[in-house]
């Protein structure tokens, strides 16, 4: 035992110059313990070697734990992305959701009114270039347009200071579920072979009913230009004085909404929406006004299934104009990730858990689809790789 103590003291002398004194003290205690255990063997370096093995093994184990390798139940971007896969297989090279879409370019014209809510440059009166994408909420890139209930719009607005505001909005007035976890369960239920899975899901998630009601009874239209697109998620705007405002925003179509029955739409071609918007924009640029709605204190900001009362203050802050439509295959929206957390300074995420989840999942989807570019080849030779 004396020999042990001597060795300990030598360790101590060898190491006592260290800033990490405390950590090492703990380690040294470990050695003492180990060496006591191995006292029978009387081979001094064994304890040190075992200690080194423990430090390395522990380091590797904590790393693996952090990476989620021991946590098959953790909801990861990988699992959420995989849950979108349709029974027919994923559309390689395409977005894992909202897989079918068409690009457009245009401008966002700020009228200056938004500056009251946010110091973001994009709200200062002026015109800023936009790259956007009309899309359908489906994982099937070849879905006939009439079969998809949710229509979406992604936009990226760039300002001269190099900042960007990206947003991906949909035509539903509320979202289907309150949390990303519930969204995962919804995907699982909708792909389940169990015929009662969706019923069970709806029963366990009463908040789903509002979305379900819109899906069933809301109007259908024959054009992307006639849809209203909503952020649904809440964000925080920070004004020039540093005051924060919880907001949601929407794009309201200037075009007249003409309700068309789903049966009527089903008779049109599989790509009627894309053809219609291409022709419509070619004959005349299409416009939406952008309206920001400000929450009252106490309004639920973390739950996109709950709309705020209709009397909440809303401010028209500008207009979006789509000037040109381009096929996605060679278009400028193809390799953009309309990640809703790409925000200019003056805007932040709120306590709504969705934007973070969407950001993590969209990045994964982006990584996958850009790596599969050969499965969705560009048609133009000489187009950017």
């Amino acid at each position, binding site marked *: 035992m004396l020999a042990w103590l001597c060795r300990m003291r030598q360790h101590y002398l060898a190491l006592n110059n260290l800033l990490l004194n405390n950590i090492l003290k703990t380690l040294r205690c470990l050695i003492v313990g180990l060496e006591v255990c191995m006292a029978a063997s009387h081979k001094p370096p064994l304890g*040190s070697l075992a200690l*080194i093995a423990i430090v390395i093994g522990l380091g590797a184990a904590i790393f693996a734990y952090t*990476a989620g390798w021991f946590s098959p139940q953790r909801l990861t971007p990988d699992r959420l992305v995989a849950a979108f896969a349709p029974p027919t297989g994923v559309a390689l090279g395409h977005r894992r959701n909202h897989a079918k879409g068409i690009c457009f370019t245009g401008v966002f014209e700020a009228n200056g009114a938004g500056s009251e809510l946010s110091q973001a440059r994009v709200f200062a009166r002026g015109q800023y270039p936009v790259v956007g994408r009309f899309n359908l909420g489906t994982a099937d890139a070849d879905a006939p347009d009439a079969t998809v209930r949710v229509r979406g719009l992604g936009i990226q607005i760039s300002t001269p200071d190099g900042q960007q505001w990206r947003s991906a909005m949909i035509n539903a007035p509320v979202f289907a579920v309150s949390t990303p976890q519930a969204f995962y369960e919804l995907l699982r239920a909708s792909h389940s072979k169990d015929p009662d899975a969706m019923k069970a899901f709806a029963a366990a998630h009463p908040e789903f009913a509002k979305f379900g009601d819109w899906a069933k009874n809301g109007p259908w239209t024959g054009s992307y230009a006639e849809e209203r697109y909503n952020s649904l998620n809440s964000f925080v705007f920070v004004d020039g004085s540093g005051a924060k405002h919880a907001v949601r925003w929407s794009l309201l179509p200037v075009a007249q909404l003409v309700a068309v029955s789903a049966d009527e739409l089903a008779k049109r071609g599989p790509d009627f929406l894309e053809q219609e918007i291409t022709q419509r924009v070619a004959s005349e640029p299409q416009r939406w006004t952008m309206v920001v709605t400000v929450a009252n204190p106490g309004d639920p900001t973390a739950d996109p299934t709950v709309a705020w009362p209709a009397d909440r203050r809303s401010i028209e802050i500008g207009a979006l104009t789509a000037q040109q439509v381009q096929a996605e295959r060679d278009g400028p929206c193809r390799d953009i990730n309309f990640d809703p957390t790409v925000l200019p300074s003056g805007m932040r995420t709120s306590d709504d858990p969705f934007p973070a989840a969407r950001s993590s999942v969209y990045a994964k989807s982006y990584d996958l689809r850009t790596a599969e570019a050969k499965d969705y080849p560009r048609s133009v030779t000489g187009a950017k790789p």
Partner: protein
Amino acid sequence: MTSRHERFTGWQRLLHWVMAACILAMLFIGVGMVSTVKPLYLTLVSIHKPLGIAILVLAVVRLALRLRYGAPSLPADLPEPMKLAAEGSHYALYALMIGMPLIGWGMLSAAAYPVVLFRGWHLPAILRQSDSLHTLLWDAHFYLAFVFFALILLHVAAALFHALVRRDGVFETMASVFTGGEVAPAE
């Protein structure tokens, strides 16, 4: 305490330990952030980018110091293969300290993401948008991260081996961050 070797200069030691903490943090933040969909994801990403760029800057300073001041020689009795391994792994560590942040930056550039470091503070793109470049760099960032971690584990094992088993003074060349190397009184 006396050591048979001269030591790294104070700045080199300070940088070594500050960067060791930062790089280990980066590796854990990296694998942690890509495995969660919680709001923590955004927090971790917003640390990952500026910290990674800080490491790039520090690594360049460190490389300059290394070229200017050199390193203490390894003990003469260290077996040749171990010397080779030590030198080789140090080259690799320098390459990764500089390469990983550049790859991360290039990967975001090739995907046309704005490389925001702080609110309203962003870096220019260093590559044009390109799905093939993005994929190449993404793979590199992913696999090299694990190479980096494995190398650090080996490096730590070697450092502890010098300190606890060989007790040859190599550990002490890097041990204290204080220039003078005053000895804390042993209790």
